């Protein structure tokens, strides 16, 4: 059984990663994921202002997920909405365990992901790219966050849904972010209507899918940093 776009049910869309694309940033990542296009950049760590927002025990992550106005079917208002803010919050949380933040007390690390073109799975693509941008910035990584959506469409449990699959009558969509290689779930958001047995299956598909994303992330890092790659 294959899908609308001829993929296997557990197959990722084509993913294309390029590190270090933004010269002025400390770290950056360009990522194409099917018809999604994301750029993520990292600036910092740098002193936190205003100071009362700083944490004296570790760096604070300020993650911003944004969609370009032209990234979606109807032009999106550039002012961030509640959805943008919620995704920024939980994605920022997801990155906390991937970086050794204790090395940089009283600082902030600005991480920005912008969706230039959107076709389902944008928060996973943005988080995957952000994690790579952190590595590209030379931050002390404990691991990478590998994210992907898994769910159900037309009765099948599928990995990495497209917009068309999200719009099917029985769609379930679960965004999963996994800290790799530790295999810990750091992001999980879901909407749908599914019995527990099936959803557990979906989660399992998602976690396995995150491993596939991780392999591509490692490859991209090794391409740019062939000698230093200690994440394999």
């Amino acid at each position: 059984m294959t899908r609308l776009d001829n993929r296997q049910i557990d197959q990722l869309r084509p993913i294309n990663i390029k590190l270090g694309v933004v010269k002025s940033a400390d770290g950056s990542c360009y990522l194409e994921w099917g018809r999604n296009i994301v750029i993520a950049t990292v600036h910092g760590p740098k002193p936190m202002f205003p100071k009362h927002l700083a944490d004296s025990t570790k760096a604070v992550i300020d993650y911003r997920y944004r969609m370009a106005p032209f990234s979606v079917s109807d032009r999106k208002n550039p002012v961030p909405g509640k959805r943008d803010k919620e995704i920024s919050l939980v994605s920022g949380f997801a990155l906390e365990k991937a970086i050794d933040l204790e090395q940089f007390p009283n600082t902030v690390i600005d991480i920005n992901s912008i969706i230039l073109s959107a076709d389902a799975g944008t928060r996973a693509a943005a988080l995957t790219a952000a994690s790579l941008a952190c590595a590209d910035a030379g931050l002390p990584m404990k691991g990478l966050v590998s994210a992907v959506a898994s769910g159900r469409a037309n009765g099948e449990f599928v990995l990495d849904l497209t917009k068309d699959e999200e719009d099917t009558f029985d769609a379930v969509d679960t965004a999963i972010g996994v800290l790799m290689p530790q295999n810990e779930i750091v992001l999980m958001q879901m909407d749908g209507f599914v019995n527990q047995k099936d959803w557990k299956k979906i989660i399992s598909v998602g976690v396995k899918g995150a491993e596939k994303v991780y392999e591509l992330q490692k490859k991209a890092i090794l391409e740019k940093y062939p000698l230093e790659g200690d994440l394999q």
Partner: protein
Amino acid sequence: MSSILNIVNADNVLKLIKEGKRLDGRNLDEFRNLEIKTGVIPSAAGSAWVKLGNTEIIAGIKFAVGSPYPDSPDEGSMSLNLELTGISSPDFFTGPPQIDAIEYGRVADRALRSSEFIDFKKLSIVSGEKVFVIFIDCIAINADGNLIDATEFAALAALLNTKIPILDENNNIGKELSSDSLPIDLNKIPLSITFEKIDNKILIDPTEEEEFTSNTRFSLGLIKDTIVSCQKSKGGSFSEDEINIMIDLAIKKYDSIIKIIKSLI
């Protein structure tokens, strides 16, 4: 919120949890006492006052007439808004909604929305032109942890208690309420169940002290054993096994809480 008391108590919470105990004597998988009063706000079309332990949320329902979304021209819509104001904490600002209120409100909203327990098709007024919009405004009166579940319970209870307003001759909202309840499928009532993890122990319905101590949260929206939404939050992580355990736990808890909710009808 963020008071020195929390810092002091965090130590105690942590010590006890190592023995599988909680500061308030509950079992790890035990909800606090849940009290719900409905019809508390005469000016609202439906209302509820939820006390979950010391956490208190008031939900009130108002209707408006609006345009349907282009992709569902025959369906009403709803909007849930949670306000964390200076009433419940000196740290909540009055003004633009802060990030916590946004997250908690959206998690509660997703549980309600995905369950499809309201038949929005019955809330169309003029096909493609006018529909009922349900505003669910939730206000935190006392914040002592697990605002997500308390908000969702309050919203639910208020919706179950709601009467639809009578329309005037121009299809605008009139002053009086009809005797019609919302078109709700009582077999699809979704509950939000929230967990925190402290020292690798999973506990349900956290107090504020426990939330302060924990760095990992998980919220599920479910109807019996059907999952309709979830949210992992905060800076920690879960294993796949832990997620599965929480799913099973939430399903076990559903019946006792839904009984309280349904007793209101």
